[in-house]
C-alpha cells in the first residue's frame, strides 16, 4: 500500500502543513472575522484524517495516538468550562469575560473568547479524529453466534 | 299439687301467714264490696267540694270516675282484640328465643318449681 499512489502521498505531505496553518488562521481570527473553534477544529482534524486516509491508520495513529485524541477531547471541554469557572472564581458570572480584565472589559473579552474558542477547537479536532479512528478501526462485523 | 313441707303454712314468714286470709273467697269478696263502696263514696264526693280545675269538662260530676272506668274497659277490650292479630307462640322468632334456658344457677339458695 505504501508503494502506491505516489502523487497522492506527495501532494498530501505538502497539503497537511498548509491545512494546519489555515486551521490556525481560522482559529485565531475567529473573534474578528468569520471562523472560530468549530470550523478550525474541523479543518485541523481534516489534516490528520487526510494523512490517515493516504498513509494508513497505523501511521496516523503514530502521529496522533488515540489516547492523546481522547485526552484532547476532554482538555478542550475543560478549557472551555475552565474559563467559565475561573471567571466565576473571580467573582463574576459564569463565562463573564470581563473578569479577566475588570478595568478594560474589552481586553477581557478578547482573552476570554480566545481561550474559549481554543477549547472548542481542541475538542472538535479531537472528536473528528476520534470518529475517524473509530470508523476506520472498526473490528470485523459480528459473528453470528454473537447475536 | 302435692303437699310438701314447703307448702306447710308454718314455714311461711309471719307476714305471709297473716295474709293467708286472702285465700278465702269470702274475704276476697269482702274486699271487692269494699271497693264498690269506696267507688260510690268517691263518686258522691264530687258533689261535696269546690272543684278547682282548668276545663269545663272536668267539672262534670264524676268525670274522672267515668273516664277512668270506661277508658280502662275500652283499653282491655281493645287489647283483647289486638291479641287476635298479634299473638304468636313463644318460639315464633326462633326456638328458645324467650327464656332459652333456666336462669343460670349461681350458687345461691334459690328455690325452683320442682323442689
Amino acid at each position, binding site marked *: 500500500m505504501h508503494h502506491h499512489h505516489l502523487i497522492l502521498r506527495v501532494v498530501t505531505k505538502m497539503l497537511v502543513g498548509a491545512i494546519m496553518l489555515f486551521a490556525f488562521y481560522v482559529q485565531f481570527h475567529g473573534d474578528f472575522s468569520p471562523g472560530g473553534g468549530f470550523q478550525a477544529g474541523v479543518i485541523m482534524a481534516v489534516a490528520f484524517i487526510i494523512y490517515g486516509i493516504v498513509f494508513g491508520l497505523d501511521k496516523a495513529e503514530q502521529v496522533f495516538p488515540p489516547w492523546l485524541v481522547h*485526552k484532547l477531547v*476532554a482538555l478542550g*471541554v*475543560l478549557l472551555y*468550562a475552565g474559563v467559565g*469557572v475561573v471567571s466565576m472564581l473571580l467573582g463574576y*458570572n*459564569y463565562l*463573564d469575560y470581563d473578569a479577566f480584565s475588570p478595568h478594560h472589559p474589552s481586553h477581557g473579552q478578547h482573552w476570554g473568547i480566545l481561550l474559549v474558542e481554543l477549547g472548542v477547537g481542541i475538542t472538535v479536532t479531537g472528536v473528528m479524529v476520534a470518529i475517524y479512528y473509530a470508523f476506520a478501526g472498526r473490528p470485523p462485523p459480528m459473528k453470528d453466534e454473537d447475536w | 299439687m302435692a303437699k310438701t313441707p314447703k307448702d306447710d303454712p308454718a314455714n311461711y314468714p309471719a307476714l305471709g301467714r297473716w295474709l293467708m286470709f286472702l285465700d278465702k273467697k269470702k274475704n276476697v269478696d269482702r274486699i271487692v264490696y269494699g271497693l264498690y263502696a269506696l267507688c260510690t263514696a268517691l263518686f258522691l264526693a264530687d258533689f261535696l267540694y269546690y272543684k278547682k280545675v282548668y276545663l269545663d269538662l272536668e267539672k262534670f260530676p264524676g268525670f274522672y270516675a267515668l273516664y277512668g272506668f270506661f277508658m280502662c274497659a275500652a283499653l282491655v277490650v281493645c287489647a283483647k282484640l289486638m291479641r287476635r292479630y298479634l299473638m304468636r307462640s313463644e318460639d315464633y322468632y326462633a326456638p328458645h328465643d324467650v327464656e332459652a334456658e333456666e336462669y343460670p344457677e349461681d350458687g345461691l339458695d334459690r328455690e325452683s318449681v320442682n323442689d
Partner: protein
Amino acid sequence: MAAEETHHVAKTFMDHLPVLQVVIPLFAAPIIVFIGKRSLAWPIAFAASAAAFVISCILLIQVLDGGFISYHVGGWAPPLGIEYRIDAANALVLALISGIGTVVLPYAYESVKAEIPKKNHTLFYACFMLCFTGLLGMVATGDAFNVFVFLEISSLSTYVLVAQGANHNKRALTAAYDYLIMGTIGATFFIIGLAMLYMATGTLNMADLADRIADEGTNRTIRAAFAFIVVGMGLKVAIYPLHHWLPNAYTFAPSAVSVFLAATATKAAIYVLLRFMFSVFNPSFVFEEWTLYIVFIPFSLLAMFAASFVAVFQTNIKRMLAYSSIAQIGYMLLGIAMLNATGLSATLVHLVNHGVTKAALFMGVGAMMLYSGSAFFNNLNGLGRKMPLTGAAMVASGLSLIGVPGTAGFISKWVLVQAAFENGWWIIAIAIMLSSLLAVIYVWRMFEVLYLTAPDPQSTAKEAPLAMLVPMWVLAIACIWFGFDTELTLGSARVAADGLLAGSAGMAH
C-alpha cells in the same frame, strides 16, 4: 452594558448556584476522561452528582415561596444572553434528577462492574455525567435554544449508555439505534419549532418569547411551531403512539442506566413540555386547548390502558416496567390536559413519585439480574425469598406503583382524581381507577413470581451487595415517606403549578 455603567459587585458561591448546578457535572465528565484512571472515575462522578443534589436542594428551598432566580451567563442580560432561570417547577425536577443521579451512582458501582467490560468504565461514567448534565441543563435553562443543546447532550450520551448493554444482550445495539433515530427526529422537530418561533418573534429567551407571543397574539408560524415542539418533545416524553423506542431502550440498557433513564429522562422532557405549553405559549390559546383535548386526552387514556394491558402480559419484568412507565406517563399527560392547578400539581407530583418508585423497582430487578442473568419471569422464580431485602424493597415500591394508600403513588393518583372531579370529568376519574386495577394485576404477577413460585434449586442467588441495597432502600423508603409526608412533594408541586398556570405572567421579570 451593565459592566460599563455600574461597578462590579463580586458574586458569591450562592449567586452561582443555578449555573453550578449544570457546570459541576459538566466539568466532571471531561475530568474523568482526562484523568483516565478507572479507580477515580466513580468517586469523581459521585462527588459531582452529590454536589449537584445539594445545590438543587438549596435552590428548591429558595424558590419554594413562589419566586424565581435568574442567572445571566456571561453577564449578558436576557433576552440577549443566555439565562438560567430557576422557579419551583424546575427546581423540583432538578432535585428529582440530581437526587436520583446521586442515589443511582452507588448502585451503579456494583452493577457496572458486573455488566460492562472494564475498559469502558471510565467512558461509562463520563457519559453518565454528560447525560446527567444534559438533563439538568435542559431543566435549569431559561433559553429555548439552550434547551435544545442540552437535550442533545443528554440524548447523545443516552444512546451510548443504552448501547453499553450490548455486552449483555446484543439487542441493546438496535435499541440504541432505534432510540437514536427517533430521538434525533424528535430533537429535529423541536429545533424546527424553535426556528419558527425565532422567525416569528426574533428572540429565544423563554420569558421574552412568552411576552412577545402574549403581546402579538398568534399566527400560523407560531401555531406550527407549537405543533412541532409538542410532537418533538412528545417523542422524548414517549407520548403513547411515539413510545416505541422506550421499551427496548429500558429493557436492554444496563441496569443502572435503566434505573436512571426511567426515573429522569422522560421526566425532564415532561418538564420541558410543561414549560413550553404553559409558560411560553399561553395556555388560554384555543389551539392549545384543542391540542390537549384532541391529542393528549385520548392518547393518554390509550396509554393508560393499552400499555397496561401489554404490561400485564409481559414475560420480561424490565419490559413490563417499561410499559408500565408508558402508562404512568399517560397519567402525567392527563394531569396536564386537565388545565387546572390541581391537575398540574398531580402531574408534577407524579413525576417525582413515579420517578422514585420506578427507580426503586428497576434497582430491584437489576440486583436480581446479577444472579439470574435475565429479567424474564421464569428466571426470577422465588428470588424474593432468596433475596429478602431486595424483594421487600420491590414490594414496597410495587405497592407505590399501584397507588396503595400510604405510598407515594397514592398521593399523585389521588390528586389526579381530584383534578378530574374538579373538571367534572368523572368518566376520566373512573378510567384512572380502572387502569390502577390493571397495575394491581401486573404488580401482583411480579409478587407472585418473586414469592409464590419455587426457586430454581441451582440458583446461586444471595442477598444483593450493600452498595445496591442501600440506594434501593433509600428509594423504597422514599416511596413510603412521600406517601405520608406530602409537604415537600405536593407542597412544591402546588407552588410550581400555580406558577405555570399563570402563563406568560408567571415568567415575567
